């Protein structure tokens, strides 16, 4: 009844600075984007680890993600060409979700861009897109002939997520964390150094992503966090169900190079001045789609019974396929299934009754607003 056991050569995989921490907590390690990453830790169930983050605080190793620094006279121009974000209008130490765009307006990757100063940005991209993103940055810089320095930042990236996250982190610093609102960041005194702390995350909870640029300090930081009894290390299993409840996209599932920010319902990442200057990749196509309102849309669905899984067919009342599930799972928080998929606009309205084919049978599903679980962000 179980699928093929999924082994890979752990020794051949890349290791994050927290690899020894994962082993010490008996993480069940798997290959994720070429890194040895924990799915679950010993004595945790998926649901218990998920609920822990919604109730307390979870520590996630996200060091596999790629941290970049872009700086130099053309840094803003460069990033405003490859993304549709209004970076000129972004205040220093403020972040925005954004997308890297190809010339057709398709999404090369999703990313967080944090402005540190005029022409100085800290950017985080997905581990799974590492090689293609690095090639993309090189190609685009050469095509545009811009003067930009691109550095990769090493060390660890640790996410602390959950309603207790702020209390826990505050115990490790004299910096008043109340000064950092959702989407803001600061260099904060921690462990005898100063590290970049960004408030936000991938679960819908209040939380922080801390860039600890030193491997040994990353490990020390992780150990200091789990000493607090409100904190448990949390693996990839819960990371995925938490982000799905929060209605967030997973690159490769909801987002691909064929999907534009309009279809992905990320039109809000296109800054207002950018709609006028049209100087970003794929602007013509994207602004056309924005005006025509005819693309399919990323849409939430809720159901009971067996959980919809990636690739399941979404059917209309007549049983004709109208879309495909991009992500789906039981929602531990809601006790029913939640899913996303792309649907024609006339069917993408809340309350529309559809069905999802699972094991050969249509199962009722209803279009639902996202996020499925109300976010719990900290705003100043």
């Amino acid at each position, binding site marked *: *009844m*179980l*699928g093929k*056991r999924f*082994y*890979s*050569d*752990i*020794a*051949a995989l890349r290791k994050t600075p927290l690899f*020894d921490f994962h*082993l*010490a907590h*008996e993480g069940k*390690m798997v290959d994720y984007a070429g890194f040895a990453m924990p799915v*679950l830790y010993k004595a945790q*169930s*998926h*649901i*218990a680890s*998920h609920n822990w983050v919604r109730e307390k605080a979870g520590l996630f190793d996200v060091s596999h993600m790629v941290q970049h620094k872009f700086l130099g006279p053309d840094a803003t121009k460069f990033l405003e060409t490859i993304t549709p974000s209004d970076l000129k209008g972004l205040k220093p130490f403020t972040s925005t979700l954004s997308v890297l765009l190809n010339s057709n307006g398709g999404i090369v990757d999703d990313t967080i861009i944090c402005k540190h100063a005029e022409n100085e940005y800290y950017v985080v991209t997905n581990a799974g897109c590492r090689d293609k993103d690095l090639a993309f940055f090189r190609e685009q810089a050469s095509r545009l002939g811009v003067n930009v320095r691109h550095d990769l930042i090493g060390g660890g990236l640790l996410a602390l997520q959950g309603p207790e996250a702020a209390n826990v982190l505050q115990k490790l610093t004299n910096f008043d964390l109340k000064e950092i609102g959702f989407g803001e960041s600061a260099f904060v005194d921690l462990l005898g150094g100063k590290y970049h702390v960004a408030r936000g995350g991938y679960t819908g909870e209040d939380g922080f992503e801390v860039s600890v640029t030193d491997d040994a300090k990353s490990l020390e930081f992780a150990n200091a966090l789990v000493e607090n009894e409100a904190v448990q290390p949390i693996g990839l*299993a819960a990371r*995925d*169900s938490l982000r799905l409840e929060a209605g967030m996209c997973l690159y490769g599932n909801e987002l691909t190079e064929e999907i534009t920010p309009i279809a992905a319902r990320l039109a809000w990442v296109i800054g207002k001045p950018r709609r006028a200057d049209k100087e970003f990749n794929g602007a013509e196509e994207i602004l056309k789609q924005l005006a025509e309102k005819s693309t399919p849309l990323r849409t939430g669905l809720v159901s009971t*019974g*067996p*959980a919809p*899984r990636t690739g399941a067919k979404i059917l209309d009342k007549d049983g004709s396929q109208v879309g495909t599930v991009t992500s789906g*799972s*039981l929602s*531990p928080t809601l006790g029913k299934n939640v899913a996303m998929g792309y649907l024609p606009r006339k069917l993408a309205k809340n309350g529309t009754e559809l069905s999802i084919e699972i*094991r050969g049978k249509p199962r009722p599903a209803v279009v639902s607003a996202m996020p499925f679980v109300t976010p719990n962000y900290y705003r100043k």
Partner: protein
Amino acid sequence: MLRTAFARSSLAMRSRVPMAFRFYSNNLTPDSPVTSYGADPTVRYTENHEWIAVHKDNVAFVGITKYAADALGDTTFVEVVETPTETEAQESIGSVESVKSASDLYSPVTGTVIEANEELVNSPGLVNEDPMGKAWFAKIQISNPAELDQLMDSDKYEAFLKENDH
């Protein structure tokens, strides 16, 4: 994937984190619906981690092993077939889901599913609590007892797990 390289990494990992040998008691639960149906059923196992307990009247109970239930984690959903249903060996007669995955339960034998465990549908958590007792999935009137010879007995199944676990 290089098998030698994997074996090395696996040993290395074990030496860093001493782990007690995991022992799965993949035996029927005493005083369960499966054992109280009749005395001394013949128990066999599949490579897909199903168990089958065959009674003297060729009525068999089928479920997933303790090993499989532990590997699956929190069971969130169970589906069983409508009864009666004719089934071939290796045909799906149910499914079991965790948050992350869905798996089919395949009939180890040919026969007729005469009863499905509706209690399991209402309480999928039974799969984790008592996979080899209360969490039987289906009761099958088997039509070809010779098929059982192709399945593993308890010793062979434990050896199979040891061989595949690391």
